[in-house]
């Protein structure tokens, strides 16, 4: 599908989502509660068939946390960006999509490790790189005590 076809397809399928054409890809923002259902429908629908997550990014916005999924359909070669924001910034919680796309399981562990976003129903949510008790370095209010980054 081209970007225009994708937009009209998504608008018909997810009327409540906020869909727009970003600088490169079609971007769709969904509510946190709808995330898992949306992901499942995007993967399973015959016309869209988004089966490959090539990037999963956690972002600390000023008043909440966001997760950005870059997904692609191998069959049709179209791609889009799925976005979601958490309600809370200090204790962010979101549903996992690791049962929809397996690779998300490990990317979510990375996001949990570096940003402290908790994923509901994740089967193996442990820290990936850092020790337990370490802060969450990618949060904007992280205190860099030994001044590795800021000089």
């Amino acid at each position: 599908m081209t970007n225009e076809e994708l937009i009209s397809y998504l608008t018909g399928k997810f009327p409540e989502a906020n869909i727009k054409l970003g600088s490169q890809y079609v971007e769709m923002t969904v509510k946190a509660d709808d995330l898992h259902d949306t992901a499942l429908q995007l993967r399973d629908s015959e016309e869209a068939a988004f089966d490959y997550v090539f990037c999963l990014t956690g972002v600390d916005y000023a008043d909440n946390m966001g997760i950005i999924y870059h997904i692609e359909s191998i069959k049709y070669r179209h791609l889009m960006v799925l976005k979601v924001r958490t309600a809370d910034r200090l204790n962010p919680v979101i549903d996992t999509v690791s049962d929809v796309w397996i690779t998300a399981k490990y990317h979510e562990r990375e996001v949990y490790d570096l940003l402290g976003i908790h994923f509901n129903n994740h089967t193996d949510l442990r820290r990936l790189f850092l020790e337990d008790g370490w802060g969450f370095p990618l949060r904007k209010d992280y205190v860099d005590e030994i001044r590795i980054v800021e000089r």
Partner: protein
Amino acid sequence: MSEIREVIINNDRLATDEYLVNMGPQHPSTHGVLRLLVRLEGEKVLNIQPHSGYIHSGIEKMCEAITYPQIIHLTDRMDYLSAHMNNEAVALCVEKALQVEVPDRVKYIRTIMDELARLASHQLWWCVFGMDLGALTTFFYGLRDRELILDIFEETCGARMTVSYNTPGGLMFDIHPNFQKRVKDFIKYFRTKLPEYDKLLSGNVILRERTEGIGHLSLNDAIAFGVTGPSGRASGFSCDVRKNQPYSAYPFVKFNEILDFRCDTLARYEVRIKEMYESLNIIEQLIDNIPEGDYAVKMKGVLKLPEGEFYQRVESARGEFGVFIISDGKKNPYRVKFRSPGFSNLFALNKMTKGHKIADLVAIMSTLDLIIPDIDR
């Protein structure tokens, strides 16, 4: 023999319990500081849990405090064997955001350098793959030939591995006057050496026995785990970014995407060997046709990206490498994410090794071609 086997099978006292072995972080076959927690029953692998983070250096966090041209120098340190591709990804992403079109000369040189880096990476992979299976000769053959590429890099970029040759808007400096001649000499030389690689290792009975049918990764699993690069293409996953979303000079050259549908360790081995031939083909098409022109576009002293999100994918030697920049209009990025191929590839290891022997684990891990700083970042 069969009597002994019967005794072992029928004797409960000789049956083994499951046990855990820590493989790494200093194990030679992990090629870096990676620890695998392996659950074994006898020699059979039941489960693998990778533990990473030994070389986590917080590159994404560091990027938030520095400017875009500086970020390029950090990307060298992630996947140090694909330094050129990583540099190029950041450069292309910044150029895309600023809507800068680089001269054709830059595109050609970048592509030649990419393919040279891919060759050097695959050579190193080939020599350590042989070494992991106990064929030490390959190590000397591979390093001998790789040295020639590193010399070419040194002459033009001033560095052998952490090259930092790309910069937003073009290249750091023009190619060395000897560059074209040396690359052509190298191609001529390496065309005679690649068949030797095949003679030495590819047809070897021990290698075939240890790789054929081992470490099966189906196409659906490859997509689900996001296994890209030669490892993904050996499962029939058409994931070559050079073909699917061409960048730099790839639209101008003819080359084949190497696909294999056997999905096993041998397939991953052969895909990489064939890719070396393809890389030589690509360089041959470009090396005599480098257009005249500037080696860089004049850019502003301080680069400020417009507000927004920018994504750039390139094909590194290990798979799809992605750079995702979120900019808020300042001179340093709000958030940078690197999609590293090794990260996704690593976690398919458990799926691939289940039920195989622990010696096969070494061979399977070797064909994934993991670079640990690329995983940990």
